[in-house]
């Protein structure tokens, strides 16, 4: 029994940490996100050179062959640096779905291009009405020869403005809320009939709303396999985003602690006030408990536990993420006082990213109900 990273994993983690320390301080990061794309293309090439873009891909596809632990190691450090480059959207989501789809020469070539950084991708699953349900899909796919024609709307698609290719969930059969009948399709980002509206999110990501009118698309899975593939992606992404969130929580707690040690009021450091001390013990404990539930979810994936057991752990992880994010983020702002309210300080930026992660793939309340359904039934 151990919770150590392998030597390889530790090197990976250290390389991200070094990048953040040397090239991605708060000021540099603000410049990066001010770009129209919301990130730096130069950084992306550097990620490719450092091999980070290959992490989740199998070795036979030219990848690093990493698992949940590797992703966690990288994402925790990215969280600490509030890295804005679309690693999750392009590599983990888009790349992950590609890897899970049926093998083909085109697919392998696309994965190679993701790994070398020449292609970026995006995944469009949410719709204006869908809220957090992956199977709530109105976007339709009509067969036309070997291909399909997609029509409908997709909401707030991460990285859609920079992506060369986009994977879209669309309904081949059934009604809006049917669990069956949804498949995944690949389209070109400049396909005819596709229009995009770019928006920014509070954590400085560039996202886009998509409108599709008879857009030509290739299916990348069977007509009823879309939902299961999205659910699988959600599992992996929740772990990845939770690791990022852990990095953020640790950073926020450390920043707040440091502030309370140095900030003086009424003649003494505010960290000497017992009420604040106890509250910082509470946020410390919240982060440690969150780390533990993350480790639990990662282990359940790495040990190939039953699908049910993994789902329970993932739901528990995302449920606790919601609580811990609000608790730790709220205390970080409150204990920083007026300074915590300003955009000049990094605290608010970390807090907004945490809130954004809370909403991603369903918030804490949503997953706590999923958890209760799974755990109390068993």
């Amino acid at each position, binding site marked *: 029994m151990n919770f150590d990273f392998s030597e390889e994993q530790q090197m990976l983690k250290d390389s991200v940490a070094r990048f953040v320390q040397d090239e991605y301080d708060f000021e540099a990061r603000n410049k990066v996100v001010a770009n129209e794309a919301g990130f730096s293309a130069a950084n992306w090439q550097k990620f490719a050179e450092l091999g980070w873009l290959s992490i989740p891909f199998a070795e036979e596809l030219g990848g690093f062959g990493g698992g949940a632990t590797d992703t966690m190691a990288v994402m925790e450090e990215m969280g600490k640096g509030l890295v804005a480059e679309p690693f999750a959207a392009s590599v983990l989501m888009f790349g992950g779905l590609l890897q899970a789809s049926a093998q083909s020469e085109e697919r392998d070539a696309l994965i190679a291009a993701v790994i070398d950084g020449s292609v970026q991708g995006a995944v469009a699953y949410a719709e204006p009405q869908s809220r957090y349900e992956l199977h709530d899909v109105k976007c339709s796919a009509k067969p036309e020869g070997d291909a399909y024609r997609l029509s409908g709307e997709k909401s707030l698609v991460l990285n859609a403005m920079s992506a060369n290719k986009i994977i879209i969930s669309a309904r081949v059969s059934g009604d809006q809320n049917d669990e069956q009948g949804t498949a995944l399709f690949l389209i070109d980002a400049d396909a005819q009939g596709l229009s995009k509206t770019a*928006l920014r999110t509070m954590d400085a990501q560039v996202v886009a709303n998509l409108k599709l009118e008879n857009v030509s698309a290739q299916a990348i899975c069977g007509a009823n396999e879309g939902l299961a593939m999205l659910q699988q992606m959600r599992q992996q992404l929740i772990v990845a985003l939770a690791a990022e969130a852990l990095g953020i929580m640790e950073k926020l707690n450390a920043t707040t602690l440091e502030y309370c040690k140095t900030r003086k009021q009424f003649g003494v450091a505010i960290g000497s006030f017992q009420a604040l001390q106890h509250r910082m013990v509470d946020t410390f404990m919240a982060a440690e408990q969150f780390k533990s539930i993350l480790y639990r979810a990662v282990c359940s994936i790495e040990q190939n536990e039953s699908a049910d057991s993994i789902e329970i752990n993932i739901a528990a992880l995302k449920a606790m993420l919601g609580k811990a994010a609000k608790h730790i983020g709220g205390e970080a*702002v409150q204990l920083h006082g007026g300074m915590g*309210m300003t955009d000049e300080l990094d605290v608010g930026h970390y807090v907004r990213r945490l809130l954004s992660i809370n909403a991603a793939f369903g918030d804490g309340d949503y997953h706590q109900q999923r958890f209760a359904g799974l755990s109390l039934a068993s």
Partner: protein
Amino acid sequence: MDINFSEAELAFRDEVRAFLKDAWNEELASQAKQPGSYKDVQVAWERKLNSKGWAAPLWPVEYGGAGWTPAQSYIFENERAAVGAPDVSPFGLKMVGPVIYSFGNDAQKERFLPRILNADDWWCQGYSEPGAGSDLASLKTKAERDGDHYVINGAKIWTTLAQHANWMFCLVRTSNEGKPQQGISFILIDMTSPGITVRPIVTIDGEHHLNEVIFEEVRVPVENLIGEENKGWTYAKSLLAHERTAIAGVADSKRNLAEVKKLAAAEVNGGRAMIEDPIFRQRISDIEIDLMALEFTELRVLASMSKGNGPGVESSLLKLKGTEIQQSIQELKLDLAGYFGTVVQDGANNEQVGHDFGDVARRGFMMSRAATIYGGSDEVQKNITAKFVLGL
């Protein structure tokens, strides 16, 4: 025990309703939804109040007050919030006005009070300083006498809407002797004076509400000093006793919670409206019950004040509980917006975004975090309550 309103109070309520229907009309309400309209709408609204004689109803009648009872204030607040009309900007009408009529000289009263009532000036508050937080008494901005002027050097921070202001009421240090509180003076500063720099502070909602105001050799006529030199702390403290009730924000919270319930009935997840979601229901009802209680806590304070007694120990809850509830409602709304609560709308219309309250929910949530920091942080409020109410 009697919470029925008297006949006279019911008649007053009808008068308020009639006034609001006319004054907070469609045109003003829709103008208020436009970005950047804040100051214009406030000024227009406050002038309507002033022409009715209700801009500062709690001021003494001789200075333009309306002679309202606490019950009338309560009725007005509830009706105002129910139609979604804004509260008045506090800096002139609720803060510097009472200080001027209580401690200013006749010339100051004549010069400033009518302009405050008619929103002719926009005031800002110069209390906090960089690095001082809730510890006001440690302030360092210096005012040195030079003939008929004070020369002011230093900086103020968290100055709300200073970018709109042409006047600031300001605490400055005029002496270093005695306790830190003893060398502070209360002075009025023309914001167009040379040597003043207003530096914007963007807050975590991405907006510009706050500023740092820097004074370099700013000359202020001695006639702008309120009361006596070195007694400013006393004047500022007396302000805290004013307007104890509005700080709970009960009327606005009731309106916001009702709105959340309406939104939750329309927001659907997996075929089920969010108002049927068991966790969301429980979160709503937790807050609603607390708010129902706080409304009566406020009524208890009002009833006590109506009898001419002090506000009572329960008044210490008003800000602590009121802000907790405000924040919880904003959190409900943000969570209700789901993915769309992350979007910065920034000029895009609702159709482009695909949602109609995500952006306002995000901004509301973010700014609500300030409610427990400004105006005496939660921690300071609890220290004060422990000391003065519990005797610890």
